[in-house]
C-alpha cells in the first residue's frame, strides 16, 4: 500500500515541487513541533513513507510489532477504563467520594495519598502536621484503609494508587486488609506506581537511595508475579516527568530506560522475563497535540515490542505489549478561564484515544490549582464517556493508521525514543544519570523553554497570552484545609498505636529489619507488620535503618 515504484515516486516528488512553487508553499517560514523537535512539513505524501512495509511496521492489532494496538478489537465493544483522581482529607471523606464515583460508573479505586504518606511519615510526626490530608489522604495504619474500603467490593474493583517509593508498603497494607476480610491476595486486581526513578526525576518524593528503591520495586514485582496474577505491581510513569517539564521524546526515552532497570534487577534475581514482562504497565502523559500524541503511543508500542523481543528475547506475546494508561498533562491546564480546560482536556483525550490508550485518568479542569470538587470530578469522567461512547472514535481500530503524516511521525518518534534511551545508557544508566542530576537538568531546561514560549506568546494559551477577555476574577474554589480533620487523623493513629499489640508490632518490625539486612524479599514481612497495625512510618523507619536515605542533587 505504501510502496510505489520508483518511477511513480519520482513523478510524485516532482509534482510536489511544482505544487510548492505555484502556491509559494513554505514561504511563510517553517512550522515547528516541540514534541519531536522537528519541523512539520506543509503536506505529507507517499514519498514520506516510501520505506514503510505494512506487515513489518504496522501489521495487525494484537500482533507484533503492535503499532496498531495491543488487542484485536481494542475499544470497539467497550470503552477504555475511565478514572479520575480522588483522595483527600480523611479516609471517611475519600470513602464517601469513592461511593459517588462508583455510582457514576467508575469501576476502579484510585487513592492519592498525602505528602507525609508518600514520604513515610505518620500523621502524628511533627514534620507532617501542616501537610496531613492536604493533597491526598493520610494512610498511617491499616485502620485507615479499613475505613476507606468500607462498603466497597474489594475483590471486584481494581485498586490503584500513585504511591511511589513506598508502594510496597501500601500494597502490603492493602493485602493485609483484604486478607483480614477473607479475600485472598490472588483475587486482588490493580496497579501501583512503584516507580522511584521517575519520581526522583520529577516530583521527588523518594525515601531511600535509588539502588535500594529499585530493590524494593523489584521485591513487589517478584511478589506479585508469584502471588497476585491480576495485579500490576509497577506503573512506570511518564506523567511524573512530563508533568514535571519534559517533552515527548524525553518522556518515552526516560521511562523505557527506567523500565529496563527494573527488568534487569528482576532478571538478576533469576526471575523469568516472560513472567515479569506482562506485569509491567506504564502511565503516560500527553499534551494537546492530537497527531503527535497518537504517533507517540503507536511508536512506543512498536519500540517496546521490538525491545522485548530483540533485547530480552521474550517468548510470549503478552510480554511484548506496551500497556499504558494516559492522562492529559495538567500542565496544559490554566487558571484563566478555567472552564476552557474542559476543551483542552478533550483534545488530550482524543489524541490518547487515537493512540490506542486502554485507560485514562483524566484531570479535573481545576486540578492544577485546587483539589477538584465533586462537580469537576464528574465532568472529567463524563468528558471521557462522551468521547468514548458518543463520538464513534473507537469504532475502528487505529483509525490514523496509513495516514502519511502519522506514519511519518510514528517512524520518527520511534527513532528519537530509541536514541534517547541510548543516550541514558551511554551516560551510565538511569540511576547514575539521576544521581548526577543529568536527567533533572534536561527536564528543567525543557520546562524553562516552554515557560518562555508562553511568556513570549510563541506558544498560544487562549485567555492567558492571546484572546484575553476582561472578566471578573474567577473565584477558584480552593479547598479549605481542615485542621479538625488533621487532629482527628492524629487522634485515630495515636489510638491505634495505643490499642494494638505492642510486642507483636515490635517483633514484626524486627523481622522486617533483618529481612532487609539479609537481602530477602521484604513483602511477606511488610504484610505481617501491616496486619499487626504497625504504621507506615514505623515500617519506613525499619527499612531506612538498613537502606539509608536518599540525597537529591540540587539542580538550578
Amino acid at each position, binding site marked *: 500500500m505504501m510502496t510505489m515504484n520508483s518511477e511513480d515516486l519520482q513523478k510524485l516528488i516532482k509534482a510536489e515541487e511544482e505544487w510548492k512553487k505555484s502556491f509559494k508553499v513554505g514561504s511563510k517560514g517553517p512550522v515547528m513541533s516541540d514534541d519531536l523537535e522537528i519541523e512539520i512539513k506543509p503536506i505529507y505524501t507517499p514519498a514520506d513513507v516510501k520505506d514503510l512495509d505494512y506487515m513489518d511496521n504496522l501489521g495487525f492489532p494484537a500482533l507484533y510489532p503492535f503499532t496498531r494496538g495491543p488487542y484485536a478489537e481494542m475499544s470497539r465493544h467497550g470503552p477504555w477504563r475511565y478514572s479520575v483522581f480522588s483522595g483527600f482529607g480523611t479516609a471517611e471523606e475519600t470513602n464517601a467520594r469513592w461511593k459517588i464515583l462508583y455510582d457514576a460508573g467508575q469501576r476502579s479505586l484510585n487513592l492519592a495519598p498525602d*505528602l*507525609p504518606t*508518600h*514520604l513515610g*511519615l505518620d500523621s502524628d510526626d511533627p*514534620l*507532617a*502536621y*501542616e*501537610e496531613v490530608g*492536604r*493533597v491526598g489522604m493520610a494512610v498511617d495504619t491499616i485502620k485507615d484503609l479499613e475505613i476507606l474500603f468500607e462498603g466497597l467490593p474489594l475483590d471486584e474493583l481494581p485498586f490503584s494508587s500513585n504511591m511511589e517509593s513506598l508502594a510496597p508498603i501500601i500494597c502490603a497494607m492493602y493485602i493485609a486488609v483484604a486478607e483480614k476480610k477473607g479475600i485472598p491476595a490472588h483475587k486482588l486486581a490493580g496497579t501501583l506506581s512503584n516507580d522511584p526513578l521517575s519520581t526522583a526525576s*520529577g*516530583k*521527588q*518524593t523518594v525515601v531511600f537511595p535509588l539502588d535500594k528503591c529499585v530493590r524494593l520495586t523489584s521485591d513487589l514485582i517478584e511478589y506479585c508475579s508469584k502471588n497476585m496474577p491480576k495485579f500490576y505491581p509497577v506503573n512506570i510513569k511518564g506523567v511524573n516527568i512530563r508533568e*514535571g*517539564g519534559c517533552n515527548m521524546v524525553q518522556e518515552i526515552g526516560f521511562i523505557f530506560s527506567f523500565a529496563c532497570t527494573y527488568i534487569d534487577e528482576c532478571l538478576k534475581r533469576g526471575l523469568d522475563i516472560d513472567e515479569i514482562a506482562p506485569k509491567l504497565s506504564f502511565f503516560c502523559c500527553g499534551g494537546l497535540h492530537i497527531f503527535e500524541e497518537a504517533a507517540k503511543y503507536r511508536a512506543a508500542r512498536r519500540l517496546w515490542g521490538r525491545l522485548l523481543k530483540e533485547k530480552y528475547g521474550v517468548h510470549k506475546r503478552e510480554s511484548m505489549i506496551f500497556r499504558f494508561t494516559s492522562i492529559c498533562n495538567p500542565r496544559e491546564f490554566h*487558571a*484563566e478561564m478555567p472552564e476552557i480546560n474542559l476543551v483542552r482536556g478533550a483534545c488530550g483525550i482524543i489524541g490518547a484515544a487515537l493512540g490506542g490508550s486502554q485507560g485514562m485518568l483524566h484531570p479535573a479542569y481545576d486540578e492544577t*490549582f485546587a483539589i477538584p470538587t465533586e462537580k469537576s470530578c464528574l465532568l472529567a469522567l463524563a468528558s471521557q464517556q462522551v468521547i468514548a461512547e458518543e463520538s464513534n472514535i473507537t469504532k475502528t481500530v487505529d483509525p490514523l493508521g496509513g495516514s502519511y503524516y502519522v506514519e511519518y511521525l510514528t517512524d520518527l518518534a520511534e527513532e528519537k525514543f530509541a536514541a534517547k534511551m541510548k543516550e541514558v545508557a551511554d551516560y551510565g544508566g538511569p540511576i547514575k544519570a539521576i544521581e548526577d542530576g543529568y536527567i533533572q537538568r534536561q527536564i*528543567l531546561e525543557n*520546562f*524553562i523553554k516552554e*515557560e518562555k514560549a508562553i*511568556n513570549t506568546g510563541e506558544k498560544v494559551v487562549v485567555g*492567558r497570552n492571546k484572546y484575553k477577555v476582561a472578566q471578573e476574577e474567577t*473565584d*477558584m474554589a*480552593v*479547598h479549605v*484545609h481542615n485542621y479538625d480533620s488533621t487532629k482527628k487523623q492524629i487522634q485515630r493513629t495515636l489510638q491505634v498505636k495505643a490499642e494494638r499489640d505492642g510486642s507483636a508490632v515490635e517483633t514484626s518490625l524486627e523481622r522486617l529489619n533483618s529481612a532487609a539486612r539479609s537481602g530477602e524479599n521484604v513483602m511477606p514481612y511488610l504484610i505481617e507488620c501491616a496486619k499487626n497495625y504497625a504504621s507506615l512510618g514505623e515500617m519506613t523507619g525499619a527499612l531506612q535503618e538498613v537502606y539509608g536515605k536518599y540525597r*537529591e542533587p*540540587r*539542580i*538550578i
Partner: protein
Amino acid sequence: MKKRLRVLVAKPGLDGHDLGARLIARTLIEIGAEVVYTGRQQSPEQVVEAAVQEDVQVIGMSYLSGAHMGLTGKIIELLKEKGLEKEILVVVGGLIPKPDLLQLEQMGVAKVFPSRSPVEDIVGYFNKLQA
C-alpha cells in the same frame, strides 16, 4: 556598581514540586543575584539556618501544596527569635489563594507573588532590591 543581592530560594514543607522555585532561581541568577537553593522538603528550622549561614538578604519560598500559612508563620517566628526579621526579607510565591495574600503580608511577608505572576513583576521587584 550594583551590589550583589543574595537570595535563598527555599522549598519548605514536604512538597516536591519545585519547578517554579527553580525557574525563579534561574531567573534571579540571570539578573545578577547570587542564589542558593535549599532543595526540597525543608523544615522551617532548616530554612532559617540556611538563610543565616548563607548570609542572604532575602528568603524566597515557593508553596504548591497549600501549607504556606503555617510554615511561613513558623519561619517568620524563627527569624524574630533571632532578631533577623528586619534584616532578612521574606518573599512568598506559589499557589496562594486570595484571602491568604493579605494575611501573609500582615504576618510580615514583604511580598507575595501568587502563581501566574508575570515574570517581569518578579524581576522588577528584585531589581529594585539590588538597585
